[in-house]
C-alpha cells in the first residue's frame, strides 16, 4: 500500500542473524549447574489400572534424585489444551494417575543425573497392571458394552462419559430436509481422514528450576506460555505469580505445542528434587506421546439445483480425540463452523460426536479441523460440479461466500460458547480463484487429451477459508518504552514459533511509530517481563497481537508527539512523523529526531515515555485460499506425483510478503504430506508402528513439486493495517485439490487419506473391472 514504510516490506527477519549463525537460542541451548535429566515411564498398555507400583529400587539407584507416581502428586483434574480459561475442553487429565488410557500414557517420572541413569531407573520401577479391554476403533467407542475410558468421578465437562463421548455438537441453519426436497440432485458420500503428526524438527522440551526467590522457572518450547503458566500453577497448587514461564526460540510447533505437555511433570520433578530438571521427548516419543491430528469419518450430503445453486449442506462427523479430550470440541467445532459456510447455502446442518479411544491423544494441528472438513466438502463439490457438467471454477464462483455476507453458522459454533456472527468485510476469493486458475493453466489443462502410455495427468482445485483469531476470546497485549537513542523496546506476550511473529510485530510497531525497523527491539513470550497474550494459535498473532501492538504504539506516539509539539513549538495537528523523526508540515520544516525527544523526556522532563494496550476482536475475518494442483498418475504403480501446486491466498494486507509466502509454502507442504504420504500407524493393541522418520514420511527437498504462491491482498477493517492471517488456511487446499486432480487424470475418486499408491491402483482395478462387467472395451 502506498505511503507505508515498513509494513508491506520484505525485511529480513529481526532474529534471522541468530538463526543462520546457530546462536544458542533454543530451549536446550543452555548449560545449568547440577541439571538433572527427567524421563516419563510410558504405559505399555492401551488401557489398564495400576494395581501396584513400587519405586523403591529406582529411588535407591545412585544418581536418582526424584521418582514420582500418582501417590506423590496432587490430583487436580485439568486439560492440557492451551486455551483461554475456562478451557472448553474436558477436565479429564491428571499429572499422574492410577489408570492409564493409551500406550505412552504417563505411569511415573524420574529425575536423575544422566539420561542413562534415568532410563535405568525407569526399568527398575515395578508396576503391576490390571490390563483392561481397550477401545481401539472409534466406530466401536459408543457401542453398548464398550469399556468406559473415563470412569473417574472427578473429571468434568465430559459430554457423556459412560458412552465415551467427550463432546457432541449439533447446529442447524434453516432446514436441510427442506433443502434436499427442493434440490434437483442430492448426493451423499463418506470420507475418512487419519492421524497426522506435526513432526516439528525440535521435539517437545522443557527445563524447570527454582530461581533464587524460590519461584518455579519453566523454560519451554511452547506456543502458549501464559496458558501453561496458569495450568501448571493450578496443577502443582502454587500461585500463578510464583511461576515464571520463558519461551526461547521454538523449533516448530504447528499446534503440537499449543499444549501443556511436559511443563507440569518437569515442574513437579524440579520441586521434588530442588534441582534444575530437563525433560525432552525423543523423536519416537514425540510421535505418540505428543499430540496428533484428529482422525475423522465424515458423511457429507449436499443438494443442488440443476443450475448449480447449493441448497443444502449436511455434514455428520465421527471423530476421536484419543485418550484425553484436549481440543476435542473446538477442533471438531471448526470442522463445521469454518467449512460449511464457505458456501452461501441457505440450509446447513452440522452434527458431530467426538469419542474417546485408547489411542494417542489428538490436539491442535494447523488448520484445526478444517483440513478434514475441506477434504470432504471440496471433493464432494467437485463431484457435483462434474455431474452437472459445470466447471468447478464456475461452481465455486457461483456459490462461495462473498464480501458483505454474514456467516450465521459461526454464530452457533464459537470456542465452547455461543460464537458471534461473522461478517465478511474483506474477500479476495474470486480473484484468488482467477489467478490460481491462470497459474496452473486451468482452461488448457482441463481440455487436454490424455497422454498415451501409463502416465496420466490431471488438474483439480479446491477453495477454503479459516479464521483470524477466535472472536471474543483471543486477546493480546503489548507494551512499549522509549530509550535514549530513539529506539523502542517492544514487549509482547506473543509466541513466535518460527512464522516470523517477532518480525511482523516489530514492523507494525515501527510503522505506527514512524521509525525504521532497527529502532524496535522486541522481547516476547516471557510471563515475567511481557504482558499477556493467549499465544500462537488460531491464526491470531498478526491480527490480535498486532492489533495490540498498533494500539500501544499509537498511545506511545501520542506521548512522543506531545513532547515534540513542545520542543517544536507547534501544535500536534501540524506535525508529521516518519524516518525516526517528527517534523512540522509547514514550509519551515522544523524537525526533531526521536533520539532528541527521548533525551528531552528522560533527562529534562524526567518522564519515561511508555505505554501498553490490550486488544481483541468480536469477529474473526477469514483469510481465503484457492488451491490448484496438477498431478501425474502412474497407472501401473498407482504413484501420484504432484507436478505443480498453485496457491492463491487473501491474507488481507501482507505485513511481510516474503514471510507470508514462506508460511504458504510450509503449510502446503504439510498439506501434501497429509494428502499423500503421512500417517501415524498403530496396531490393534494401540501401539505405534512407525514412530520415526524412516516410516512416517514427510516431504524432503527432493519430493517438492513446483510451487506457485500468489498473495491477493485485500484491506480488512478489523486488522492492523488491513491484515488478517495466513499461517493456517493454505494447509486445507492440497488434499482435496490433489484428489480432484486424480479424478480428472484417471477417473477414480479416493475418499480416504492418505492417498497411497495402493489405493489408487486398487481403485483403478475396480474401475476397470466395473467397465468390463458393463461390456465397455478399454482402449489402451
Amino acid at each position, binding site marked *: 500500500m502506498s505511503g507505508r514504510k515498513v509494513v508491506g516490506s520484505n525485511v529480513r527477519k529481526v532474529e534471522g542473524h541468530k538463526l543462520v549463525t546457530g546462536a544458542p537460542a533454543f530451549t536446550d541451548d543452555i548449560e545449568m549447574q547440577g541439571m538433572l535429566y527427567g524421563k516419563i515411564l510410558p504405559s505399555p498398555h492401551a488401557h489398564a489400572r495400576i494395581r501396584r507400583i513400587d519405586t523403591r529400587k529406582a529411588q535407591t539407584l545412585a544418581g536418582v534424585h526424584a521418582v514420582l507416581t500418582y501417590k506423590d502428586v496432587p490430583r487436580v483434574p485439568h486439560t492440557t489444551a492451551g486455551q483461554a480459561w475456562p478451557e472448553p475442553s474436558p477436565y479429564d487429565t491428571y499429572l499422574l494417575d492410577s489408570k492409564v488410557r493409551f500406550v505412552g500414557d504417563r505411569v511415573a517420572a524420574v529425575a536423575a543425573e544422566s539420561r542413562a541413569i534415568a532410563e535405568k531407573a525407569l526399568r527398575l520401577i515395578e508396576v503391576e497392571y490390571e490390563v483392561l479391554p481397550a477401545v481401539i476403533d472409534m466406530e466401536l467407542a459408543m457401542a453398548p458394552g464398550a469399556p468406559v475410558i473415563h470412569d473417574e468421578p472427578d473429571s468434568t465437562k465430559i459430554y457423556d462419559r459412560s458412552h465415551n463421548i467427550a463432546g457432541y455438537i449439533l447446529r442447524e441453519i434453516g432446514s436441510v430436509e427442506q433443502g434436499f426436497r427442493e434440490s434437483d440432485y442430492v448426493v451423499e458420500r463418506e470420507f475418512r481422514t487419519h492421524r497426522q503428526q506435526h513432526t516439528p524438527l525440535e521435539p517437545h522440551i522443557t527445563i524447570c528450576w527454582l530461581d533464587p526467590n524460590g519461584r518455579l522457572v519453566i523454560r519451554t518450547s511452547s506456543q502458549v506460555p501464559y496458558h501453561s503458566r496458569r495450568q501448571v500453577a493450578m496443577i502443582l497448587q502454587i500461585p500463578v505469580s510464583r511461576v515464571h514461564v520463558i519461551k526461547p526460540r521454538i523449533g516448530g510447533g504447528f499446534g503440537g505445542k499449543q499444549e501443556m505437555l511436559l511443563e507440569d511433570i518437569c515442574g513437579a520433578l524440579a520441586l521434588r528434587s530442588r534441582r534444575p530438571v530437563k525433560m525432552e521427548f525423543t523423536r519416537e516419543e514425540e510421535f505418540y506421546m505428543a499430540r496428533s491430528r484428529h482422525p475423522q469419518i465424515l458423511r457429507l450430503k449436499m443438494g443442488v439445483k440443476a443450475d448449480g445453486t447449493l441448497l443444502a449442506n449436511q455434514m455428520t462427523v465421527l471423530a476421536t480425540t484419543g485418550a484425553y479430550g484436549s481440543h476435542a470440541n473446538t477442533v471438531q467445532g471448526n470442522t463445521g463452523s469454518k467449512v460449511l459456510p464457505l458456501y452461501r447455502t441457505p440450509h446447513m446442518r452440522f452434527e458431530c460426536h467426538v469419542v474417546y479411544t485408547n489411542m494417542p491423544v489428538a490436539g491442535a494441528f494447523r488448520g484445526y479441523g478444517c483440513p478434514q472438513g475441506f477434504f470432504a466438502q471440496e471433493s464432494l463439490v467437485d463431484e457435483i460440479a462434474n455431474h452437472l457438467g459445470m466447471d468447478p471454477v464456475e461452481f465455486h464462483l457461483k456459490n462461495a461466500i462473498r464480501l458483505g455476507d454474514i456467516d450465521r453458522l459461526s454464530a452457533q459454533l464459537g470456542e465452547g460458547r455461543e460464537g458471534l456472527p461473522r461478517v465478511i468485510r474483506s474477500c479476495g476469493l474470486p480473484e484468488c480463484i482467477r489467478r490460481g486458475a491462470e497459474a496452473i493453466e486451468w482452461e488448457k489443462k482441463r481440455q487436454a487429451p490424455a497422454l498415451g502410455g501409463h502416465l496420466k495427468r490431471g488438474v483439480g482445485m479446491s477453495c477454503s477459508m479459516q479464521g483470524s483469531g477466535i472472536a471474543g476470546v483471543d486477546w493480546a497485549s503489548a507494551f512499549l518504552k522509549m530509550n535514549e537513542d530513539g529506539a523502542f523496546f517492544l514487549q509482547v506476550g506473543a509466541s513466535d514459533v518460527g512464522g516470523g511473529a517477532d518480525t511482523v510485530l516489530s514492523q507494525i510497531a515501527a510503522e505506527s511509530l514512524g521509525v525504521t525497523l532497527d529502532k524496535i527491539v522486541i522481547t516476547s513470550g516471557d510471563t515475567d517481563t511481557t504482558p499477556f497474550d493467549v499465544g500462537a494459535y488460531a491464526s491470531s498473532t498478526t491480527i490480535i497481537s498486532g492489533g495490540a501492538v498498533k494500539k500501544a504504539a499509537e498511545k506511545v506516539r501520542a506521548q512522543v508527539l506531545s513532547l515534540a509539539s513542545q520542543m517544536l513549538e507547534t501544535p500536534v495537528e501540524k506535525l508529521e512523523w516518519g524516518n525516526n523523526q517528527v517534523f512540522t508540515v509547514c514550509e519551515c520544516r522544523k524537525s526533531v529526531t526521536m533520539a532528541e525527544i527521548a533525551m528531552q523526556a528522560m533527562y529534562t522532563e524526567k518522564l519515561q515515555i511508555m505505554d501498553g494496550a490490550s486488544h481483541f476482536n468480536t469477529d474473526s475475518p477469514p483469510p481465503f485460499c484457492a488451491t490448484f494442483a496438477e498431478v501425474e498418475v502412474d497407472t501401473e504403480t498407482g504413484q501420484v506425483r504432484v507436478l505443480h501446486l498453485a496457491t492463491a491466498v487473501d491474507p488481507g494486507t501482507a505485513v511481510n510478503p516474503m514471510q507470508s509466502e514462506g508460511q504458504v509454502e510450509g503449510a502446503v507442504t504439510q498439506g501434501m504430506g497429509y494428502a499423500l504420504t503421512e500417517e501415524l500407524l498403530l496396531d490393534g493393541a494401540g501401539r505405534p508402528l512407525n514412530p520415526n522418520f524412516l516410516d512416517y514420511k514427510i516431504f524432503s527437498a*527432493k519430493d517438492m513439486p513446483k510451487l506457485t504462491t500468489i498473495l491477493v491482498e485485500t484491506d480488512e477493517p478489523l486488522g492492523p493495517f488491513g491484515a488478517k492471517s495466513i499461517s493456517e488456511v493454505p494447509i486445507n487446499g492440497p488434499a482435496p485439490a490433489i484428489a480432484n486432480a486424480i479424478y480428472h487424470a484417471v477417473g477414480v475418486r479416493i475418499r480416504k487419506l492418505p492417498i497411497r499408491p495402493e489405493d489408487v*491402483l486398487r481403485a483403478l482395478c475396480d474401475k476397470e473391472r466395473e467397465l468390463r462387467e458393463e461390456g465397455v472395451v478399454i482402449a489402451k
Partner: protein
Amino acid sequence: MFEQVEDFHRPASVREAVRLLESGKGRARIVAGGTDLVVDGDSTVRALIDITHSGIAYIRKRGGSCAIGAATTMAELEESRIIRGLGGGILARAAATCGSIQIRGVATVGGNLANGSPAADLVTPLLVLDAVVVVADAKGRRKLPIAEYLAVRGARAMRQSLLVEVTVPRPLGRRCGWSFQKLGRTALDISVVNVAAGLQVDAAGRIQWARLALGAVAPTAIRAGATEKNLRGRGLDAEAVAEAAEGVMREVSPITDLRASATYRREMCRVLTRRALVECAAQAGCAI
C-alpha cells in the same frame, strides 16, 4: 546408548581387526559408517572396532574383476568411474539411492551386506553381477558367492568373521543391457521393491543369458532362477518380457508390512521387472 563401551579400536589391518573381534567374546562390534549400528543401539556392546582404516577401502581392477573393499562408501561407489562403467552402472545407481548424502558419505558396501536387510539396495545389483564376497576370520579368508553369503550371514559361525571385499567379475561381451529399478514411497526411502536385471543378446536378438534379482520381496534378496531359465534362448520381445514379468510373481514371497501389502509388492515385481527388461533391451540394441 553406548555408555558401556570400554574400547574404541582403529585396527590398521584386517588381521588385527579379526583378532579384536575374536577377543571381544561376542561383545565387540565392527563399525564402519555406523548408520545401522548406532540406530540399532545395542547396549550390550563393549568394544567397537572401526575398520575404516584397516586397508579395505578401495576400488580397483584385478584381472577380469573389480575388487571393492568392504569399507568403500556408497558415495565412493557413486563417484567411481570404474563402478559407473561396470554392468551399465547399476551398482553406482543403486548406491545413489541409499539414503541422503550424509548417509551415503559414510555408509559402506560391507555394512549394507552385513546388515542383511532384504531391501538392501546394493544387494540386488550385486546378485545380478554374480558378485563374490570375501570374508576373513581367524582361520583366514574365504570366498562365498553372494547368494550363499546372504544365506549364512546371520549364522553364529559368521559372528567372528569380517566381510573384507566384494569381488565383481567384469562382464564382457557386446549387446548387454542392465537395469536397476527401485520403488519407494518418497524420493528418499527404503525399497518397497527393488529389481536389478542384466542380460545379453546375440546378433539375432536371442537372449544368451538373463539375470533377474528382486529385493524386499523375500527373506533375502533373490535371483529369479526359473524366470531366468525361461528367458534363455528366447527372442527378446514384448511377449518374452511380459511372460518374464508374470513369472517373477511366482518366485517371490513378499510380506505385508506397514510400507506396503504383499499383493501390491507382488504386482510391483511384475511392473518393475517389465520396466527393467525393457531398459535392458534398449541398451542391448533391441527396441521393445
